[in-house]
């Protein structure tokens, strides 16, 4: 087993364990911390895939900004332990077979998707190429996202205002 494969399995185990922990934990703050573990493991996987820029913004934006927002809201609302309620019978009997079907279908696709990896340019060239794509070919969508963020900020302020 090569070193890359070993690193992949360690990070993948971390990610899956974090995701399972998110489901099992009853307290929202524990779920949030589990999700941060998943995101850190995914950042490591992005480094393994030679996507350095994506790994950096995964840590800075996802694990940093978004999850801090989540933890902040959980503490602000003083969210307690989740109440346990009985699941609906329809959800159980329809959901479990459908989940199995989805898993089988995904496994079938994965089996057919395997192929050799293409050669990748050096890290500096890859990040440079990403910047070229982002600011030339995708310049208009990039500018459009700034308007999206502005509208999201306005929406959040309007929603959180006390007298609406």
């Amino acid at each position, binding site marked *: 087993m090569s070193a890359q494969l070993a690193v992949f399995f360690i990070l993948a185990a971390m990610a*899956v364990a974090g995701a399972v922990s998110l489901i099992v934990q009853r307290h929202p703050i524990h779920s949030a911390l589990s999700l941060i573990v998943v995101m850190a493991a995914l950042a490591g996987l*992005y480094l393994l895939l030679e996507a350095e820029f994506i790994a950096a913004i995964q840590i800075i934006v996802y694990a940093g900004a*978004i999850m801090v927002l989540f933890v902040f809201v959980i503490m602000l609302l003083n969210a307690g332990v989740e109440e346990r309620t009985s699941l609906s019978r329809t959800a159980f009997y329809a959901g479990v077979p459908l989940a199995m079907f989805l*898993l089988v279908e995904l496994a079938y696709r994965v089996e057919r*998707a395997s192929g050799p*990896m293409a*050669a990748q340019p050096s890290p500096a060239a890859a990040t440079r190429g990403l910047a070229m794509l982002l600011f030339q070919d995708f310049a208009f969508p990039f500018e459009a996202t700034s308007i999206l963020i502005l509208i999201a900020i306005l*929406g959040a302020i309007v929603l959180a205002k006390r007298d609406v």
Partner: protein
Amino acid sequence: MVPISYYIALSAILFGLGVTAFVFKRNIITIFMAIELMLNAVNLAFVAFSRALGQLQGQVFVFFVIVVAAAEAAVGLGIVILIARNRQSLNVERINLLKL
């Protein structure tokens, strides 16, 4: 070298766990986190395919997914705060105003 199918399998597993959390959790903030988990699983598939095909467009899409996730978290948590203020509960079972 790690085969691409391993990454896609991990992405599928994480997406499935995200769906499971989305269906089984009762706290509205945890349901939001399940959505973030699913977005992360999709991002992993994007980056893996980008690496396998030797093209960078996939990473640009991941960039946009992260931007949209940030906007979604800002608006969504605003809605959560509003719900918690009006209904005094974060349990989705209690948020049934539109239920027949």
